[in-house]
């Protein structure tokens, strides 16, 4: 099992699926229920392929040796040898849990989008082909250990997502898609410059230039160069993840994207930003990371409060969820740049948990929008009476978003905060105040949509359908299960975070009071022994 080329196969499978879906013949033939046969076939192919990827990823997840090498399932194939770049695959615990998240979310999203393209002007087939193409890019970006290849996937992700937003999104989809695209492209350009910079440095130091992650971490880059290269990567990641003030594309993109794409955009794509900070910025440029950390902690905390306050002020449900994510990305970045094993592990776990909780929120919001044909909060009211099970799912997703103990997000938020407190006291205190605002934006949203008097303008709405239950149930079950027993996931993440901590030469601070007590005891002992002498 260990020798199976999991990563390349998992990366390519959805791409093959996308090609199959794209090549399915277009026909107007209808089946007995009046559905377009070609469209139905496209959906089923997409679903089956994504489920195959899920099974494969789970096999890999359980074959991963959490106490083994840093990178496992490594593969190398020649790409451009003259250039020092290879098709190099390999995952550590951080990438592994993200791959598991992708593999879980894609089939869910495909099933959630089952009827989304139907009846519109756009091709249903293309929608599902794009989804699969997006999955390939997402898996690729986490599965590679070659910096250039990472960059290629990082940029390639934009293309399917761009089309998903621009072709299948809401009324302002063009604006949102272009904004998303331009922002990301600008960030990508900074990163490209830095990637080339790293290559140049490696040529200087090693003779032969390389893009291999492991070799690049061995470089000894002088601090000034490090800072510039760090910034190149970091700006790209800060736009992707988005941190304040690079965030304004997200509410538009998240608000206009079709629900399935929104789940993947906020749940996975944006995590590439925080993942990149942890997996690339820290190990490649340790001195620069330490140098910039106070500033980044500052904008992270600002983002926690700012994103939450803006979420409170939103009147559109999708935009509201997008703003909550900006606050959550603040927590993740805080955890990454706090440089303790608890905060780092918490940040990675947060990436997974946020994918689940925000994914669930977007999915439920999608159910509601499908029924009401509106995403405005004010168009709902008292809906809990009509659709109690959707309301229940909404509440569980919301409670996870506000990090209630018993849900997954509590574990990660607690880890981030308890880990950050040791190194950044004031920032952590401010960040903790953010949990009050989190309660406010979630519960107020819930009150305005689900509680209170029934809004008379709401049409008759069906409660949750079987398909929707199948979509949302696994996410909710995971939210609760990982709230009670997160250890299996934590145990995979922590060793990888410790490797990263070693890269930047940081250790967990010792308990302060114990430390003082011990040192004063030692001094006392010395004094005693001195007196004896």
């Amino acid at each position: 099992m260990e020798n199976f080329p999991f990563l390349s196969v998992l990366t390519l499978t959805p791409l093959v699926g996308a090609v199959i879906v794209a090549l399915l013949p277009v026909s107007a033939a209808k089946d007995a229920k009046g559905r377009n046969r070609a469209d139905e076939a496209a959906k089923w192919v997409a679903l089956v392929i994504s489920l195959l990827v899920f099974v494969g990823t789970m096999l890999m997840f359980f074959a991963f040796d959490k106490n083994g090498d840093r990178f496992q399932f490594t593969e190398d194939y020649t790409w451009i040898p003259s250039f020092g770049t290879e098709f190099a695959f390999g995952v550590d615990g951080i990438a592994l849990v993200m791959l598991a998240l992708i593999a879980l979310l894609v089939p869910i999203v495909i099933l959630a989008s089952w009827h989304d393209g139907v009846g519109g002007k756009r091709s249903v087939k293309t929608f599902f082909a794009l989804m699969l193409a997006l999955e390939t890019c997402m898996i690729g970006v986490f599965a590679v250990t070659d910096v250039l290849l990472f960059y290629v996937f990082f940029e390639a992700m934009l293309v399917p997502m761009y089309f998903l937003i621009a072709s299948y999104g809401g009324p302002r989809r063009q604006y949102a898609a272009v904004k998303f695209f331009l922002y990301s492209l600008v960030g990508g350009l900074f990163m490209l410059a830095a990637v080339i910079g790293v290559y140049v440095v490696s040529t200087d130091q090693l003779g032969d230039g390389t893009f291999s992650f492991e070799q690049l971490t061995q470089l000894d880059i002088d601090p000034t160069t490090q800072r510039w290269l760090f910034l190149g990567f970091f700006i790209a990641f800060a736009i992707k993840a988005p941190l304040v003030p690079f965030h304004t594309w997200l509410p538009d993109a998240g608000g206009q994207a079709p629900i399935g794409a929104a789940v993947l955009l906020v749940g996975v794509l944006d995590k590439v930003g925080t993942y990149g900070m942890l997996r690339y910025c820290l190990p490649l440029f340790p001195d620069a990371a330490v140098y910039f950390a106070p500033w980044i902690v500052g904008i992270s905390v600002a983002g926690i409060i700012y994103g939450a306050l803006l979420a409170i002020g939103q009147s559109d449900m999708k935009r509201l969820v997008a703003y909550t994510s900006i606050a959550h990305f603040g927590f993740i970045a805080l955890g990454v740049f706090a440089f303790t094993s608890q905060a780092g592990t918490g940040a990675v776990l947060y990436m997974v948990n946020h994918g689940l909780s925000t994914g669930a929120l977007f999915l439920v919001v999608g159910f509601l929008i499908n029924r009401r044909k509106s995403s405005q909060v004010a168009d709902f009211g008292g809906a809990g009476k009509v659709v109690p099970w959707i309301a229940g799912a909404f509440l569980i997703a919301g409670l996870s978003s506000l990090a209630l103990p018993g849900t997954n997000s509590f574990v990660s938020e607690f880890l981030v905060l308890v880990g950050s407190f040791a190194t950044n006291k004031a920032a952590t205190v401010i960040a903790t105040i953010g949990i009050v605002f989190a309660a406010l934006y979630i519960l107020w949203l819930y009150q305005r949509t689900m509680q209170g008097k029934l809004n008379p303008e709401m049409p008759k709405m069906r409660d949750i359908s079987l398909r929707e239950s199948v979509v949302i149930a696994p996410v909710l079950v995971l939210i609760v299960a990982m709230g009670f027993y997160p250890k299996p996931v934590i145990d995979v993440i922590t060793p990888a975070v410790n490797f990263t901590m070693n890269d930047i030469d940081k250790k967990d601070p010792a308990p302060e009071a114990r430390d003082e007590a011990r040192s004063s005891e030692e001094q006392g002992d010395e004094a005693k022994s001195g007196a004896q002498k």
Partner: protein
Amino acid sequence: MLSLLWLIIALPLAGAAVLLLAGAPPLRRLGADKWGHYLGSATVGVSFLLAVGAFFALKDRSDRHYEDQLWSFIPVGDLQVDIGLLFDPLSAVFVLLITGVGFLIHVYSIGYMADDPGRRRFFGYLNLFVAAMLVLVLGNNFVSLYAGWEGVGLASYLLIAFWYDRPSAATAAKKAFIMNRVGDVGLAIAIFVLFAQLGTITYDGVFSNVDDLSSVTITVVALLLLLGACGKSGQFPLQAWLPDAMAGPTPVSALIHAATMVTAGVYLIARANPIFSASETAQLVVCIIGAITLMIGCIIGCAKDDMKQVLAYSTVSQIGYMFLAVGLGGPAYALGIAHLLAHGFFKAGLFLGAGSVMHGMKDQGDIRRFGGLAKYMPITAVTFGLGYLAIIGLPPLSGFFTKDPIIEHAFDRPGWTGWVFGGAALLGAGLTAFYMTRLMVLVFFGKKRWTDDIKHPHESPAVMWWPMVVLAVGSVSAGYLFYRGDALSDWLAPVLGEPHEAATHKIEPGVLTATVIGVVVVAALFAAALFWRGTALQEQPVRSPFVIAARRNLYADAFNEAVLEKPGLWLTRILVYFDSRGIDGMVNGLAATVGGTSSRLRRLQTGFVRSYALTMLFGAVAVVAALVAAGWR
């Protein structure tokens, strides 16, 4: 027996899961609406029996301390958070209170909620509450405490908003959750400080190393814990949510917002007594908070006309007494717990009585519209009356044996602060007697004043009155338990320290007791004389600013609205504007400058998505070409 401790939590938790999921369409044929309330009551009943068994098992252990690690919860580096249980004298009394009173209130709810279509859901939430509350008191570390702490917050939220189509209930629930979260921030930061300082968050690890902490750190941690306690227990300045929480069904008010959850703050301070005892400043602040709150509760309680509102403010006030007690520290810790237990009985009984009255009066709660009900609801009147005698603190009922020593210890506090706290506690006792007598007289005695649509006020069914009888018996007999000298404080000694009498008293105990009883009797008689003939049916215009302030909850809500809500709302609005015009405007402006060219380009092409794609493809090819060229240089 002790190894079955986990079942005490697991049973109600499983009950909650079954009850809430059983409403799903595929499971509906199980007919859970018909048996759900029995299941819900049974889980708590069995938990109570297990708790009794565990209690006796604990009694047999010489160290009266039992810990059980269940599973590893959050293990990262030095941080090792386990799900573990701690059963010691302090948690034992809480577990008995929660499951015992909880069971009675479950049974009562069978009758009270009989006509409500959401009864199954109600019992699901109640079971969830019991489970979370047990996690809170049974955990052996601060993270478990926090988990239970927020868990009861959720259950409280769900139950206050049980009738979620009522806007007032939904708003009250949200208010409760958010004000609690303000307190939770304090609790959370306290945990962070403890971990950063000591590298552990277990009770054992923290309490045995308090000496290593600097005195400033201890005070900071204690005050942060106190903030959490104030939120959960409705203490000043976070008291405003508790009276609003009465929007929930009355059994909820009895169980959560009187007997158990709101006393969690007292539990926290008693549990963390090694920290509080090490900081005089923190103890003083606890006393101040307790004294202020007990006065606030009494004053507002005198001005309220809704039965549940009066009881809610009396809860605020009685918990103020408990805070005062645990703030005094030393032997008074046990007094706080004693008063908490006694209060658990009589206040739960009073609320159930209020529910019984409202049940018989078409859900009216205005005491000006009652009167003479003793004749129609004899059982309710007697059980309520016993609870009333207990709360005003007349011997030989339980309230006397728990409140009187608190007043005594408050006076005994060294220095002039003793006179202040003692005076406040004594004055509070008088005011309590006044407003509770007013309530008792206006509801049960005098002429009937109810509206015409209520033809026959009636006694509640047996399933409702017998829990009231049990609680009334408890309110009376608990006094005997506390009367027997130091039985409770001896039992709690392994946690709270050995009880010892103060050497000197400022006021001779006999004199003080006589004074307290005198004040209570005079206040009660005064109120009885004032209200025996009933009261005006409309709210009376008043000239005294004091009364106006009391009717408006001493302006706490007005303050919150003016200082927090309105400015907060404006802030978010300004930020939303700033975000779209400021930050985004800047970016769009930049884009427009650059985009002058792109819009011309767009005109050249079709303006379709395809054009962007082509541009992109072209760009990508160009980038790769540049790279390759660079490589071959």
